[in-house]
């Protein structure tokens, strides 16, 4: 079962290819753990031109990861003690703290504990921008999905959606317009 609400693949004259590309896209999105963040996906391919385009609506609103999400913050002597629960974020956390307070005020007495010499609690500092990471992963996925010879690419991303187009020939405005129209008609169908 597709976790996405809508997933349409249209490849004129290539029924087998359409079926297979569905599988490929599913495999790649699953590999990169992106499948839950995409609401609707429309894929349009014209092998004769040849052009490959993907339009997707995002399930956005991933809040940035804060210090209090990844660690327990407690007031301690001369500052705040941060005990990291998920070590995966340790590197990001240290980087943020160093930037904000400077290295001399950040101490790491043990593997999962950091002590910061400060008066204000650091618990609301953002550790990682998940949204930006997601965008990076999504671009990576799109590059993997697109057939390899399609070297001319364009990626338009907004908060709510993304539009990716790749072709062998130069991407002309008319072509982009035409493909967008096609996808719009798929959306309304």
């Amino acid at each position, binding site marked *: 079962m597709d976790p996405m609400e809508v997933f349409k693949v249209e490849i004129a*004259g*290539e029924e*087998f290819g359409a079926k*297979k590309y569905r599988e*490929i896209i599913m495999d790649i999105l699953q590999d990169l753990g992106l499948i839950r963040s995409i609401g609707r996906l429309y894929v349009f391919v014209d092998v004769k031109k040849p052009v490959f385009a993907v339009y997707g609506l995002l399930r956005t609103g991933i809040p940035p990861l804060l210090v209090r999400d990844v660690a327990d913050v407690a007031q301690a002597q001369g500052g705040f003690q941060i005990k990291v629960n998920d070590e995966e974020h340790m590197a990001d956390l240290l980087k943020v703290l160093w930037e904000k307070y400077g290295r001399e005020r950040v101490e790491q007495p043990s593997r999962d504990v950091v002590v910061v010499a400060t008066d204000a609690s650091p618990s609301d500092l953002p550790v990682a921008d998940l949204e930006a990471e997601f965008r990076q992963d999504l671009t990576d996925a799109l590059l*993997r999905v697109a057939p*390899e*010879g399609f*070297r001319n690419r364009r990626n338009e991303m907004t908060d709510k959606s993304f539009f990716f187009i790749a072709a*062998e020939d130069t991407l002309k405005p008319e072509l982009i317009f035409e493909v967008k129209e096609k996808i719009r008609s798929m959306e309304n169908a």
Partner: protein
Amino acid sequence: MLEPVMFTGGVYKHDLVMELVEDLGGYVLQKNVTQSEVILLLLVPKEDMEALKALISELRGELVRAPLAGTEVAVVTPTLAIHHLPHTACDIAEYLRRNGAKSNMIGLARGVGRETAQINEYESMLIDEHDAVVFIFGNFVECIRKKEALYRNINIPVVVTGGPEISKEELPYAFEYVPSVGRITHRAKKATELGTLDNIIESVGRALDRTRTEISKDPLTTSPPRVMDAVREQVPEVEYSFSPLPIALNLNGVRVKLPYEKYKDAVRAVKFDEGVTLGEIATIRPSKMKDYILVRILPMSETGFVF
């Protein structure tokens, strides 16, 4: 008639198997030791197979037929990028290996795109050194038809694989077309996928059989395994080659994995019991693969005798 078989068993006493094969007049093509297990590719006279089977059952080993043994098969993908590797290409190459062939993976430099795909002279000459080739294409009928240009000038049998069903008539330059492969982003594990791999093996087997039949019309002066044995004996440096298979067998010759300039004369001077040298019954030229030596045995029509 020599029968190609593969022995899998423990390292302990496997030398008895090798000795027996040599005593029977067969050949050990390849020996792979993986920790406590050993895999031997053998050519054994058909009438003596029972003797070998008896020994192997005593050693608790396993003996299976390896129809592709003694051949080299190229697996060609449009490039070596993530779009084509690893799954399909590696699965096919590994399956060929399990059936006894030596498989080489070749990624073309500019094989991608529907309009832009191309192959250069060096690549096609390198592919021509093999006995058969498997071209791996994608999921679109249109592209598979269009990419015929990539293998039109290849002189060995070309097995084309791809996703959709296409009738053989539409691909006149291919030896055979095997459908339902295409671009796959996971390892072959379902029964249907494994069945497709079997189809590819069968198709390659038929391609090799065709070449064998062609060769039998004008037989080679001597058999490639015999050349391999003689080279191994008289050019001992070959044993120090770093390749896992220092002498690779083809249907019409061998590839000796030693630098051409330094060893071409030694290989040319290899002498057989009948009194002829290898230089007299074969052409010896530089291989397109690294700087190896390519030996192509001349047919009877050119030398006038067979031994």
